[in-house]
Protein backbone atom coordinates (compact mmCIF):
# COMPACT_ATOMS: atom_id res chain seq x y z
CA UNK A 1 0.00 0.00 0.00
CA UNK A 2 2.75 2.46 0.91
CA UNK A 3 4.31 1.92 -2.51
CA UNK A 4 1.02 2.54 -4.21
CA UNK A 5 0.31 5.79 -2.37
CA UNK A 6 3.79 7.08 -3.11
CA UNK A 7 2.56 10.45 -4.31
CA UNK A 8 0.24 12.64 -2.34
CA UNK A 9 -1.86 13.76 -5.32
CA UNK A 10 -2.63 10.14 -6.19
CA UNK A 11 -5.91 9.84 -4.25
CA UNK A 12 -7.24 12.88 -6.12
CA UNK A 13 -6.17 11.45 -9.46
CA UNK A 14 -7.91 8.23 -8.53
CA UNK A 15 -11.05 10.12 -7.63
CA UNK A 16 -10.88 11.86 -11.00
CA UNK A 17 -10.50 8.56 -12.82
CA UNK A 18 -13.45 7.11 -10.93
CA UNK A 19 -15.75 10.01 -11.80
CA UNK A 20 -17.18 8.23 -14.87
CA UNK A 21 -18.00 5.23 -12.67
CA UNK A 22 -19.76 7.37 -10.06
CA UNK A 23 -21.64 9.15 -12.83
CA UNK A 24 -22.74 5.88 -14.46
CA UNK A 25 -23.79 4.18 -11.22
CA UNK A 26 -25.58 7.35 -10.05
CA UNK A 27 -27.42 7.67 -13.36
CA UNK A 28 -28.35 4.00 -13.23
CA UNK A 29 -30.03 4.35 -9.85
CA UNK A 30 -31.66 7.62 -10.87
CA UNK A 31 -33.30 5.70 -13.72
CA UNK A 32 -31.61 7.69 -16.48
CA UNK A 33 -30.92 4.50 -18.44
CA UNK A 34 -34.48 3.24 -18.13
CA UNK A 35 -36.02 1.16 -19.74
CA UNK A 36 -32.98 -0.76 -21.01
CA UNK A 37 -30.12 0.05 -18.61
CA UNK A 38 -28.14 -3.04 -19.63
CA UNK A 39 -27.66 -1.78 -23.15
CA UNK A 40 -26.93 1.81 -22.17
CA UNK A 41 -24.46 0.96 -19.42
CA UNK A 42 -22.75 -1.71 -21.49
CA UNK A 43 -22.10 0.86 -24.23
CA UNK A 44 -20.98 3.57 -21.83
CA UNK A 45 -18.62 1.36 -19.83
CA UNK A 46 -17.08 0.16 -23.09
CA UNK A 47 -16.57 3.75 -24.19
CA UNK A 48 -14.78 4.60 -20.92
CA UNK A 49 -12.55 1.54 -21.19
CA UNK A 50 -11.63 2.71 -24.71
CA UNK A 51 -10.95 6.24 -23.47
CA UNK A 52 -8.44 5.00 -20.90
CA UNK A 53 -6.80 2.69 -23.43
CA UNK A 54 -6.40 5.66 -25.76
CA UNK A 55 -5.01 7.64 -22.82
CA UNK A 56 -2.38 5.05 -21.95
CA UNK A 57 -1.31 4.81 -25.60
CA UNK A 58 -0.99 8.60 -25.85
CA UNK A 59 1.39 8.80 -22.90
CA UNK A 60 4.58 7.88 -24.73
CA UNK A 61 4.18 10.53 -27.44
CA UNK A 62 3.16 13.10 -24.83
CA UNK A 63 6.21 12.37 -22.71
CA UNK A 64 8.44 12.35 -25.77
CA UNK A 65 7.30 15.55 -27.45
CA UNK A 66 6.11 17.66 -24.56
CA UNK A 67 8.69 16.58 -22.01
CA UNK A 68 5.93 16.11 -19.47
CA UNK A 69 7.76 13.66 -17.22
CA UNK A 70 4.98 13.72 -14.64
CA UNK A 71 2.73 11.98 -17.16
CA UNK A 72 4.94 8.92 -17.38
CA UNK A 73 4.59 8.34 -13.64
CA UNK A 74 0.93 7.64 -14.19
CA UNK A 75 1.26 5.15 -17.01
CA UNK A 76 0.53 2.16 -14.79
CA UNK A 77 -2.28 3.97 -13.04
CA UNK A 78 -4.00 4.84 -16.31
CA UNK A 79 -3.48 1.30 -17.62
CA UNK A 80 -5.02 -0.19 -14.49
CA UNK A 81 -7.96 2.19 -14.83
CA UNK A 82 -8.51 0.95 -18.40
CA UNK A 83 -8.47 -2.60 -17.04
CA UNK A 84 -10.93 -1.61 -14.32
CA UNK A 85 -13.41 -0.15 -16.83
CA UNK A 86 -12.99 -3.20 -19.09
CA UNK A 87 -13.97 -5.44 -16.17
CA UNK A 88 -16.89 -3.14 -15.38
CA UNK A 89 -17.90 -3.45 -19.04
CA UNK A 90 -17.80 -7.25 -18.75
CA UNK A 91 -19.92 -7.16 -15.59
CA UNK A 92 -22.54 -4.89 -17.18
CA UNK A 93 -22.73 -7.29 -20.13
CA UNK A 94 -23.04 -10.40 -17.95
CA UNK A 95 -25.46 -9.04 -15.36
CA UNK A 96 -27.35 -6.02 -16.66
CA UNK A 97 -27.45 -6.93 -20.34
CA UNK A 98 -27.67 -10.74 -20.46
CA UNK A 99 -29.20 -11.13 -16.99
CA UNK A 100 -26.68 -13.92 -16.21
CA UNK A 101 -28.68 -16.06 -18.63
CA UNK A 102 -26.26 -18.87 -19.36
CA UNK A 103 -27.76 -19.81 -22.71
CA UNK A 104 -27.50 -16.19 -23.91
CA UNK A 105 -23.89 -15.81 -22.77
CA UNK A 106 -22.75 -19.18 -24.10
CA UNK A 107 -24.24 -18.64 -27.56
CA UNK A 108 -22.65 -15.16 -27.71
CA UNK A 109 -19.33 -16.62 -26.65
CA UNK A 110 -19.43 -19.54 -29.05
CA UNK A 111 -20.05 -17.93 -32.37
CA UNK A 112 -19.90 -14.18 -32.28
CA UNK A 113 -16.61 -12.82 -33.67
CA UNK A 114 -16.87 -9.44 -31.97
CA UNK A 115 -17.21 -11.16 -28.63
CA UNK A 116 -13.96 -13.07 -29.29
CA UNK A 117 -12.20 -9.81 -30.02
CA UNK A 118 -13.45 -8.35 -26.74
CA UNK A 119 -12.48 -11.48 -24.81
CA UNK A 120 -8.94 -11.43 -26.25
CA UNK A 121 -8.56 -7.74 -25.39
CA UNK A 122 -9.76 -8.40 -21.86
CA UNK A 123 -7.42 -11.37 -21.41
CA UNK A 124 -4.44 -9.31 -22.55
CA UNK A 125 -5.40 -6.48 -20.19
CA UNK A 126 -5.70 -8.99 -17.33
CA UNK A 127 -2.19 -10.30 -17.95
CA UNK A 128 -0.81 -6.77 -18.15
CA UNK A 129 -2.59 -5.78 -14.94
CA UNK A 130 -1.33 -8.90 -13.16
CA UNK A 131 2.25 -8.18 -14.23
CA UNK A 132 2.12 -4.47 -13.47
CA UNK A 133 3.48 -4.63 -9.92
CA UNK A 134 7.08 -3.80 -9.04
CA UNK A 135 7.74 -7.35 -7.91
CA UNK A 136 6.42 -8.76 -11.18
CA UNK A 137 8.59 -6.31 -13.10
CA UNK A 138 11.60 -7.64 -11.20
CA UNK A 139 10.62 -11.24 -11.70
CA UNK A 140 10.03 -10.88 -15.43
CA UNK A 141 13.15 -8.78 -15.92
CA UNK A 142 13.95 -8.49 -19.60
CA UNK A 143 10.76 -10.26 -20.57
CA UNK A 144 8.58 -7.56 -18.98
CA UNK A 145 8.78 -5.11 -21.85
CA UNK A 146 7.94 -7.60 -24.63
CA UNK A 147 5.06 -8.88 -22.51
CA UNK A 148 3.62 -5.40 -22.22
CA UNK A 149 3.93 -4.85 -25.97
CA UNK A 150 0.82 -7.04 -26.10
CA UNK A 151 -1.15 -3.85 -25.41
CA UNK A 152 -1.04 -3.37 -29.19
CA UNK A 153 -2.85 -6.65 -29.71
CA UNK A 154 -5.46 -5.55 -27.16
CA UNK A 155 -5.88 -2.22 -28.94
CA UNK A 156 -6.37 -3.86 -32.34
CA UNK A 157 -8.96 -6.18 -30.74
CA UNK A 158 -10.78 -3.22 -29.21
CA UNK A 159 -11.07 -1.52 -32.59
CA UNK A 160 -12.29 -4.78 -34.19
CA UNK A 161 -14.74 -5.29 -31.29
CA UNK A 162 -16.22 -1.84 -31.93
CA UNK A 163 -16.53 -2.03 -35.73
CA UNK A 164 -17.83 -5.57 -35.74
CA UNK A 165 -20.84 -4.80 -33.59
CA UNK A 166 -22.02 -1.68 -35.47
CA UNK A 167 -25.63 -1.94 -36.60
CA UNK A 168 -25.97 1.49 -38.14
CA UNK A 169 -24.44 4.09 -35.84
CA UNK A 170 -20.67 4.22 -36.42
CA UNK A 171 -20.00 7.22 -34.15
CA UNK A 172 -18.24 5.41 -31.31
CA UNK A 173 -16.25 3.06 -33.54
CA UNK A 174 -15.18 6.01 -35.67
CA UNK A 175 -14.08 8.25 -32.77
CA UNK A 176 -12.08 5.52 -31.11
CA UNK A 177 -10.40 4.72 -34.44
CA UNK A 178 -9.64 8.40 -35.07
CA UNK A 179 -7.48 8.38 -31.93
CA UNK A 180 -6.09 4.87 -32.03
CA UNK A 181 -5.01 4.62 -35.67
CA UNK A 182 -2.58 7.60 -35.51
CA UNK A 183 -1.26 6.42 -32.15
CA UNK A 184 -0.59 2.96 -33.54
CA UNK A 185 1.03 4.28 -36.71
CA UNK A 186 3.19 6.55 -34.57
CA UNK A 187 4.53 3.49 -32.77
CA UNK A 188 5.11 1.46 -35.88
CA UNK A 189 6.82 4.38 -37.58
CA UNK A 190 9.06 4.76 -34.61
CA UNK A 191 10.11 1.13 -34.76
CA UNK A 192 10.65 1.38 -38.50
CA UNK A 193 12.82 4.51 -38.35
CA UNK A 194 14.70 3.22 -35.37
CA UNK A 195 15.71 0.13 -37.27
CA UNK A 196 16.50 2.03 -40.43
CA UNK A 197 18.67 4.82 -39.08
CA UNK A 198 20.02 3.89 -35.71
CA UNK A 199 20.49 0.24 -35.34
CA UNK A 200 23.15 -0.23 -38.01
CA UNK A 201 25.37 2.61 -36.84
Amino acid at each position, binding site marked *: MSVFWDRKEKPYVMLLFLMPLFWMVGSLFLGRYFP*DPGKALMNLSGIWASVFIIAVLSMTPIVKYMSLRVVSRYRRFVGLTAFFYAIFHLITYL*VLFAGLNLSWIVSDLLDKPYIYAGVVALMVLSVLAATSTKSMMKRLGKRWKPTHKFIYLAVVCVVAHLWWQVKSDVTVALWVSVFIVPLLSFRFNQIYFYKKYFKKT
Partner: protein
Amino acid sequence: NSFQNIIETPYGSAEKVAPFDVATSYNNFYEFGYGKNDPKDKSAEFKTTPWTITVEGEAGKTGVFDLDDIIKESMLEERIYRLRCVEAWSMVIPWVGVSLGDVLRRFEPTSKAKYVYFETLYDPKQMPAQRGGSFDWPYREGLRIDEAMNPLAMFAVGMYGSVLPNQNGAPVRLVIPWKYGFKSIKSIVKIRFVETMPETTWSLLAPSEYGFYANVNPNVDHPRWTQKQERRLPSGVLFPNVIDTEMFNGYSEEVASLYAGMDLSRFY
Protein backbone atom coordinates in the same frame (compact mmCIF):
# COMPACT_ATOMS: atom_id res chain seq x y z
CA ASN B 1 -56.72 12.46 -29.20
CA SER B 2 -58.25 9.35 -27.68
CA PHE B 3 -60.55 7.15 -29.75
CA GLN B 4 -64.13 6.41 -28.78
CA ASN B 5 -65.77 2.98 -28.88
CA ILE B 6 -62.71 0.92 -29.73
CA ILE B 7 -63.69 -2.71 -30.34
CA GLU B 8 -62.16 -4.98 -27.71
CA THR B 9 -60.41 -8.15 -28.91
CA PRO B 10 -59.02 -11.10 -26.96
CA TYR B 11 -55.50 -10.63 -28.39
CA GLY B 12 -52.89 -10.53 -25.67
CA SER B 13 -55.29 -9.96 -22.82
CA ALA B 14 -53.02 -12.00 -20.53
CA GLU B 15 -49.89 -9.96 -21.36
CA LYS B 16 -48.29 -7.33 -19.17
CA VAL B 17 -48.38 -4.14 -21.22
CA ALA B 18 -45.31 -1.87 -21.27
CA PRO B 19 -45.80 1.52 -19.57
CA PHE B 20 -46.80 4.24 -22.06
CA ASP B 21 -43.68 6.30 -21.31
CA VAL B 22 -41.43 3.36 -22.15
CA ALA B 23 -43.17 2.57 -25.41
CA THR B 24 -42.99 6.20 -26.50
CA SER B 25 -39.40 7.02 -25.47
CA TYR B 26 -37.49 3.92 -26.56
CA ASN B 27 -37.92 3.74 -30.32
CA ASN B 28 -36.09 2.81 -33.48
CA PHE B 29 -37.27 5.32 -36.05
CA TYR B 30 -34.06 6.20 -37.83
CA GLU B 31 -35.64 9.00 -39.84
CA PHE B 32 -35.44 11.01 -36.62
CA GLY B 33 -32.01 9.77 -35.46
CA TYR B 34 -30.22 6.63 -34.35
CA GLY B 35 -30.59 7.14 -30.58
CA LYS B 36 -33.50 5.47 -28.82
CA ASN B 37 -34.70 8.86 -27.52
CA ASP B 38 -34.19 10.71 -30.80
CA PRO B 39 -37.60 9.86 -32.27
CA LYS B 40 -39.36 11.35 -29.25
CA ASP B 41 -37.04 14.34 -28.98
CA LYS B 42 -37.04 15.24 -32.67
CA SER B 43 -40.52 14.42 -33.93
CA ALA B 44 -42.65 16.93 -32.01
CA GLU B 45 -43.13 19.16 -35.08
CA PHE B 46 -43.89 16.27 -37.43
CA LYS B 47 -47.08 17.04 -39.36
CA THR B 48 -49.47 14.11 -39.81
CA THR B 49 -52.63 15.85 -41.02
CA PRO B 50 -53.66 15.87 -43.77
CA TRP B 51 -52.15 12.52 -44.77
CA THR B 52 -52.53 10.75 -48.08
CA ILE B 53 -51.45 7.33 -49.25
CA THR B 54 -50.62 6.57 -52.87
CA VAL B 55 -51.81 3.15 -54.01
CA GLU B 56 -50.15 1.76 -57.14
CA GLY B 57 -49.53 -1.41 -59.09
CA GLU B 58 -51.49 -4.60 -59.60
CA ALA B 59 -54.83 -3.51 -58.18
CA GLY B 60 -58.24 -2.46 -59.43
CA LYS B 61 -58.43 0.72 -57.38
CA THR B 62 -55.28 2.81 -57.50
CA GLY B 63 -54.69 6.49 -56.85
CA VAL B 64 -54.16 8.88 -53.98
CA PHE B 65 -56.35 8.28 -50.96
CA ASP B 66 -56.90 10.33 -47.85
CA LEU B 67 -56.10 8.35 -44.72
CA ASP B 68 -59.45 9.37 -43.23
CA ASP B 69 -61.18 7.73 -46.18
CA ILE B 70 -59.23 4.50 -45.78
CA ILE B 71 -59.90 4.03 -42.07
CA LYS B 72 -63.05 4.99 -40.25
CA GLU B 73 -62.99 5.43 -36.50
CA SER B 74 -65.89 3.01 -36.11
CA MET B 75 -63.77 0.15 -37.48
CA LEU B 76 -60.97 0.44 -34.93
CA GLU B 77 -60.06 -2.44 -32.66
CA GLU B 78 -57.52 -2.80 -29.87
CA ARG B 79 -55.04 -5.67 -30.02
CA ILE B 80 -52.30 -6.30 -27.49
CA TYR B 81 -49.27 -7.67 -29.33
CA ARG B 82 -45.74 -8.64 -28.39
CA LEU B 83 -43.22 -6.59 -30.37
CA ARG B 84 -39.85 -8.31 -30.79
CA CYS B 85 -37.00 -6.14 -32.06
CA VAL B 86 -34.19 -7.76 -34.06
CA GLU B 87 -31.86 -6.24 -31.43
CA ALA B 88 -33.12 -8.82 -28.91
CA TRP B 89 -35.44 -6.67 -26.82
CA SER B 90 -39.21 -6.76 -26.75
CA MET B 91 -42.25 -4.91 -25.43
CA VAL B 92 -45.97 -5.54 -25.20
CA ILE B 93 -48.02 -2.81 -26.86
CA PRO B 94 -51.79 -2.24 -27.06
CA TRP B 95 -52.27 -1.16 -30.69
CA VAL B 96 -55.36 0.44 -32.20
CA GLY B 97 -56.17 -0.23 -35.83
CA VAL B 98 -57.69 -2.66 -38.29
CA SER B 99 -56.67 -5.83 -40.09
CA LEU B 100 -54.24 -4.97 -42.87
CA GLY B 101 -56.01 -7.44 -45.16
CA ASP B 102 -59.32 -5.59 -44.82
CA VAL B 103 -57.64 -2.38 -45.97
CA LEU B 104 -55.73 -3.98 -48.85
CA ARG B 105 -58.75 -5.89 -50.20
CA ARG B 106 -60.61 -2.65 -50.78
CA PHE B 107 -58.00 -1.71 -53.41
CA GLU B 108 -58.91 -4.94 -55.23
CA PRO B 109 -55.48 -6.49 -55.79
CA THR B 110 -55.34 -8.59 -58.97
CA SER B 111 -54.00 -12.14 -59.33
CA LYS B 112 -50.65 -10.61 -60.29
CA ALA B 113 -50.30 -9.03 -56.85
CA LYS B 114 -47.94 -11.58 -55.27
CA TYR B 115 -46.33 -9.08 -52.92
CA VAL B 116 -47.18 -5.75 -51.40
CA TYR B 117 -44.63 -3.00 -50.99
CA PHE B 118 -44.75 -0.10 -48.50
CA GLU B 119 -42.85 3.14 -48.28
CA THR B 120 -42.30 5.66 -45.47
CA LEU B 121 -42.54 9.39 -46.04
CA TYR B 122 -39.41 11.00 -47.45
CA ASP B 123 -39.22 14.56 -46.16
CA PRO B 124 -35.76 15.61 -44.95
CA LYS B 125 -37.18 18.93 -43.72
CA GLN B 126 -39.29 17.10 -41.18
CA MET B 127 -37.15 14.00 -40.73
CA PRO B 128 -33.67 15.29 -39.87
CA ALA B 129 -31.78 12.00 -40.21
CA GLN B 130 -32.88 11.66 -43.82
CA ARG B 131 -30.43 14.45 -44.66
CA GLY B 132 -27.52 12.06 -44.45
CA GLY B 133 -26.28 8.74 -43.25
CA SER B 134 -25.82 5.39 -44.89
CA PHE B 135 -29.49 4.75 -45.58
CA ASP B 136 -30.95 4.88 -49.04
CA TRP B 137 -34.14 6.72 -48.09
CA PRO B 138 -37.09 6.37 -48.18
CA TYR B 139 -37.49 3.40 -45.85
CA ARG B 140 -38.99 0.47 -47.75
CA GLU B 141 -40.67 -2.70 -46.61
CA GLY B 142 -42.72 -5.49 -48.10
CA LEU B 143 -44.76 -8.59 -47.41
CA ARG B 144 -45.86 -11.58 -49.40
CA ILE B 145 -49.54 -11.07 -50.19
CA ASP B 146 -50.66 -14.03 -48.06
CA GLU B 147 -48.66 -12.66 -45.13
CA ALA B 148 -50.29 -9.26 -45.59
CA MET B 149 -53.74 -10.86 -45.71
CA ASN B 150 -53.17 -12.89 -42.52
CA PRO B 151 -55.67 -11.65 -39.92
CA LEU B 152 -52.85 -10.94 -37.42
CA ALA B 153 -51.25 -8.32 -39.69
CA MET B 154 -52.41 -4.90 -38.56
CA PHE B 155 -52.74 -1.46 -40.07
CA ALA B 156 -52.41 0.65 -36.94
CA VAL B 157 -53.33 4.26 -36.33
CA GLY B 158 -53.14 4.30 -32.56
CA MET B 159 -51.80 2.82 -29.35
CA TYR B 160 -52.89 2.96 -25.70
CA GLY B 161 -56.34 4.05 -26.86
CA SER B 162 -55.16 7.22 -28.61
CA VAL B 163 -53.69 8.27 -31.95
CA LEU B 164 -50.13 7.12 -32.61
CA PRO B 165 -47.51 9.43 -31.12
CA ASN B 166 -45.23 10.78 -33.88
CA GLN B 167 -42.26 8.78 -32.60
CA ASN B 168 -44.22 5.54 -32.97
CA GLY B 169 -44.95 5.99 -36.66
CA ALA B 170 -47.87 8.41 -36.89
CA PRO B 171 -50.28 8.59 -38.47
CA VAL B 172 -50.30 5.03 -39.81
CA ARG B 173 -47.98 2.03 -39.61
CA LEU B 174 -47.90 -1.71 -39.94
CA VAL B 175 -47.75 -4.07 -36.97
CA ILE B 176 -46.61 -7.54 -37.99
CA PRO B 177 -46.22 -9.24 -34.61
CA TRP B 178 -44.59 -12.49 -35.78
CA LYS B 179 -41.78 -10.62 -37.55
CA TYR B 180 -38.91 -8.52 -36.22
CA GLY B 181 -39.93 -4.94 -35.55
CA PHE B 182 -38.22 -3.43 -38.59
CA LYS B 183 -40.84 -5.08 -40.82
CA SER B 184 -43.52 -2.94 -39.17
CA ILE B 185 -42.94 0.12 -41.33
CA LYS B 186 -43.96 3.53 -39.99
CA SER B 187 -45.55 6.69 -41.41
CA ILE B 188 -46.68 4.97 -44.60
CA VAL B 189 -47.26 7.08 -47.74
CA LYS B 190 -47.16 4.45 -50.46
CA ILE B 191 -48.63 1.00 -51.04
CA ARG B 192 -47.73 -0.84 -54.25
CA PHE B 193 -49.00 -4.27 -55.32
CA VAL B 194 -46.24 -6.07 -57.22
CA GLU B 195 -45.53 -9.39 -58.87
CA THR B 196 -41.92 -9.88 -57.73
CA MET B 197 -40.36 -9.68 -54.29
CA PRO B 198 -39.68 -6.00 -53.53
CA GLU B 199 -36.38 -4.66 -52.22
CA THR B 200 -36.48 -3.71 -48.56
CA THR B 201 -34.29 -1.26 -46.67
CA TRP B 202 -32.52 -3.51 -44.19
CA SER B 203 -31.97 -6.39 -46.58
CA LEU B 204 -30.43 -3.92 -49.05
CA LEU B 205 -28.16 -2.53 -46.35
CA ALA B 206 -26.94 -5.85 -44.92
CA PRO B 207 -28.33 -8.81 -46.87
CA SER B 208 -26.45 -11.40 -44.82
CA GLU B 209 -27.98 -10.09 -41.60
CA TYR B 210 -31.54 -9.08 -42.49
CA GLY B 211 -33.70 -11.08 -44.86
CA PHE B 212 -36.98 -10.28 -46.57
CA TYR B 213 -38.98 -12.56 -44.28
CA ALA B 214 -37.44 -11.58 -40.93
CA ASN B 215 -39.70 -13.93 -39.00
CA VAL B 216 -38.96 -14.07 -35.29
CA ASN B 217 -37.04 -17.33 -34.98
CA PRO B 218 -34.97 -18.45 -31.98
CA ASN B 219 -33.32 -21.14 -34.11
CA VAL B 220 -31.76 -18.70 -36.56
CA ASP B 221 -29.31 -16.32 -34.91
CA HIS B 222 -28.41 -12.93 -36.21
CA PRO B 223 -24.82 -13.35 -37.46
CA ARG B 224 -23.58 -11.17 -34.63
CA TRP B 225 -25.86 -11.93 -31.70
CA THR B 226 -28.18 -14.62 -30.42
CA GLN B 227 -31.93 -14.56 -31.04
CA LYS B 228 -32.68 -17.34 -28.55
CA GLN B 229 -33.58 -14.93 -25.78
CA GLU B 230 -34.82 -11.40 -25.44
CA ARG B 231 -34.93 -8.66 -22.83
CA ARG B 232 -38.59 -7.89 -22.16
CA LEU B 233 -38.63 -4.18 -21.46
CA PRO B 234 -38.73 -2.36 -19.16
CA SER B 235 -35.77 -3.91 -17.34
CA GLY B 236 -35.25 -3.72 -13.60
CA VAL B 237 -32.50 -1.45 -12.26
CA LEU B 238 -29.89 -4.19 -11.96
CA PHE B 239 -31.46 -7.12 -13.74
CA PRO B 240 -33.09 -7.36 -17.14
CA ASN B 241 -36.13 -9.51 -17.63
CA VAL B 242 -34.60 -12.12 -19.95
CA ILE B 243 -37.08 -14.57 -21.45
CA ASP B 244 -36.87 -17.23 -24.15
CA THR B 245 -37.84 -16.05 -27.61
CA GLU B 246 -40.68 -18.07 -29.11
CA MET B 247 -41.00 -19.28 -32.69
CA PHE B 248 -42.90 -16.65 -34.71
CA ASN B 249 -42.87 -14.60 -31.50
CA GLY B 250 -45.46 -16.99 -30.06
CA TYR B 251 -47.88 -16.66 -32.99
CA SER B 252 -47.15 -20.07 -34.59
CA GLU B 253 -50.75 -21.16 -34.41
CA GLU B 254 -51.85 -18.27 -36.60
CA VAL B 255 -48.94 -18.02 -39.06
CA ALA B 256 -46.82 -21.20 -39.18
CA SER B 257 -48.88 -22.55 -42.11
CA LEU B 258 -47.70 -19.61 -44.25
CA TYR B 259 -44.21 -21.08 -44.23
CA ALA B 260 -44.97 -24.79 -44.53
CA GLY B 261 -42.13 -26.57 -46.34
CA MET B 262 -39.87 -23.50 -46.38
CA ASP B 263 -36.30 -23.66 -45.09
CA LEU B 264 -36.45 -20.80 -42.61
CA SER B 265 -32.71 -20.74 -42.06
CA ARG B 266 -32.31 -19.97 -45.75
CA PHE B 267 -35.29 -17.62 -46.01
CA TYR B 268 -34.55 -15.68 -42.83
